C-alpha cells in the first residue's frame, strides 16, 4: 500500500539528490522559487548537477557555489536587476556547460518528458543559432506538407523542486498566487518532485476546500513535502509576500565586492534555515515584504 505520509525534512529531501543528477527548479526569475530547498542544496556536499530552470538567484547561487556542471536555461534574471550577477561571473569564467533555448522550447521539452516522448516538434529556434549550439536535430512532417521542424528533446528531470502556498501530508497542494508558471510540468517531467510550502495542513479537504481550484499538481506527482514558511525568500510569494529587493541589491553588489562566493555564502545561505531567516530579519519581516508592482 502506498505510504501517503510524504512529510520529510529539507535535509532528507536534499539527501535524495545525488551527484550528477538533473534537477528542475520551479518558479520564474525572482518569482516563487523554492529558495529554502536551494539553500539546503548549498549547505550539502552534492555536486556536478545539471540544473533546469527559468532562472533567478537560485541559478546564480548554485553557479557561484560550484554546484552546477550544466545549465538548461532560456534566461537568468532578477527582473529589476536584469543581469544575474553570479550567473554572469560563472559564464564569463567558462565554468559551466550550457544548453540554451527559448522559453517556449523549455516548457515544450518539459512537456515531452512529462509524456515520455523523445521530443516534440516546433518551429521555435529555426533561423537562430540555438539548434547548432544545442545539437537540436530536425524532424520532417510525414504528411503532405512535409514541413521541417526542430525536434525539441525531452528535458527529463531526476528531481523537481517547487514551492507552494499550502500542502497537506499526502501531497495535495495549493498555489494561491496568480501564476503556476511551468511548475506542473516540472513536476510531471521529474521522476520525483519535492514541494516545500508556506503552510502544511492536516487534510486539505478539511482545511481549505474552498481553494481546491488552486491545486496545480495532482498529488500522484508529489514524492515529498516540507513546511518552510518564508521558504521563497528572497523571491516573491504572492499573495503572501513580495521579493526582497534590498537582499537582491546586496547579493548583486557582493558579486563585484568581494566577488568571491566563499566569503559571502554564510550571509546568503546561512548554516541552517533558522540562522538564515534570523539574518534577514525573521519570518515576520519576510511575511511583511510588499508585493512587487510590475
Amino acid at each position: 500500500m502506498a505510504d501517503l505520509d510524504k512529510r520529510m525534512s529539507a535535509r532528507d529531501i536534499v539527501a535524495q539528490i545525488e551527484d550528477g543528477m538533473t534537477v528542475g527548479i520551479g518558479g520564474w526569475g525572482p518569482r516563487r522559487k523554492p529558495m529554502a530547498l536551494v539553500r539546503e542544496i548549498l549547505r550539502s556536499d552534492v555536486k556536478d548537477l545539471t540544473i533546469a530552470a527559468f532562472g533567478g538567484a537560485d541559478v546564480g547561487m548554485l553557479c557561484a557555489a560550484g554546484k552546477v556542471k550544466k545549465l538548461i536555461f532560456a534566461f537568468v534574471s532578477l527582473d529589476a536587476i536584469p543581469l544575474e550577477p553570479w550567473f554572469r561571473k560563472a559564464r564569463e569564467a567558462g565554468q559551466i556547460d550550457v544548453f540554451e533555448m527559448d522559453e517556449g522550447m523549455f516548457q515544450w521539452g518539459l512537456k515531452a518528458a512529462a509524456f515520455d516522448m523523445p521530443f516534440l516538434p516546433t518551429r521555435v529556434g529555426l533561423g537562430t543559432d540555438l539548434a547548432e549550439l544545442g545539437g537540436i536535430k530536425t524532424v520532417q512532417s510525414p504528411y503532405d506538407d512535409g514541413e521541417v521542424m526542430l525536434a525539441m528533446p525531452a528535458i527529463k528531470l531526476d528531481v523537481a523542486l517547487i514551492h507552494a502556498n499550502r500542502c497537506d501530508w499526502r501531497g495535495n497542494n495549493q498555489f494561491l498566487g496568480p501564476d503556476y508558471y511551468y511548475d506542473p510540468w516540472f513536476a510531471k517531467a521529474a521522476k520525483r518532485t519535492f514541494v516545500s510550502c508556506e503552510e502544511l495542513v492536516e487534510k486539505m479537504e478539511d482545511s481549505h476546500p474552498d481553494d481546491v481550484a488552486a491545486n496545480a499538481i495532482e498529488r500522484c506527482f508529489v514524492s515529498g513535502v516540507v513546511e518552510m514558511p518564508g521558504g521563497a525568500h528572497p523571491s516573491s510569494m504572492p499573495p503572501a509576500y513580495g521579493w526582497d529587493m534590498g537582499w537582491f541589491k546586496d547579493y548583486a553588489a557582493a558579486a563585484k565586492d568581494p566577488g568571491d562566493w566563499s566569503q559571502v555564502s554564510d550571509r546568503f545561505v546561512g548554516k541552517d534555515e533558522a540562522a538564515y531567516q534570523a539574518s534577514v530579519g525573521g519570518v515576520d519581516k519576510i511575511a511583511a515584504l510588499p508585493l512587487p508592482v510590475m
Partner: protein
Amino acid sequence: MEGNADMTDISLAELCIFACAEAFRTEREIIATGVGTVPRLGASLARLSHSPGLLMTDGEAWLVEQPVPIGPRDYNDRKRAGYLPFSRFFDSAVWTGRRHAMVTPTQIDRFGQTNLSYLGGTHEQPKVQMLGVRGFPGNSIYHPNSMFIPQHGKRVFVEGEVDMVSSAGYNPAKRIKGGNYSAIDLRRIVTNLCVMDFGGPDHAIRVVHLHPGVTFDEVQEATGFELAKADDIGETPLPTAEALEIIGRMDPHNLRAKVMKDNPPARRAG
C-alpha cells in the same frame, strides 16, 4: 484638434513613444507587449488612441483594458479584465501569432537578426553574458516584432552578423529547406535618430522617417551596414496634443525623461 503641440515642449522620448505607438497600429485584437519605458508607453498610447483592439497585461498575470501607468503605484491599482499568466502565454499569445512585441535587443544586423544572449568570446565562455535568448526565438518565428533603440550606433547596428542569433530575421543562409518562415514579420525600428522598417530590397532595413534635424547620412554613419532609403522619406510626425496628454497620464512620474541622456528635445538644438 488638431494641431501639434509646440515643438519646443516635446521631448525626443515623446517623439519616439508616438512613433512606437504607430508601430503597434492595428485593426486586429492581439496582445501588445512593450518591454521598457518607451515601448510600453507606445503600446499604451496605441491602445488608448487608434488601436483599441490591442490587449495588454499588467506585467504580472492579468489582462487590463485600461493600460497600467508605469512607475510606483499601489499593487491593487489596476483593474483586471482578463487573465494571461506566463503559464499559458505560449499557448495563447506567442505560438498562435496573436501578439506584437517591441523590445530592445543588444545587437541588430542587416538581416534583422538580433542578439540578447552574449557578446564576444564563445558560447562556452562569453566575454559578456547577457540575459539569454529569453522568448526571442519563438517571438520572431511566430508573430510581428518591432524594436526600440535609444542609442543608435554601430555597437547596436553591427557590421557583419550579430554575435549570437537569438531571433530569426531575413537571412537566407539561416533558412533550412522545408522550414516554415512565413510568420517572420519584422515591422519597425524606432531609434533616437529615425524610424526604419524592413521595406528595402530583400527586406533590407530602410529609413522611412528622420527625426527633426537628423540627416540620412548621419543615420548611415551610425549604422554598421548599408541602409535603404524610402522614396518618400519624411520627418517623423510629432505627437499630437491628445497623444501627449495620454503619455503624461500613463507616465505620471515622468520616467520617460530618464530614457535618453539629458532628455533632449524632439528637435535638437543647433
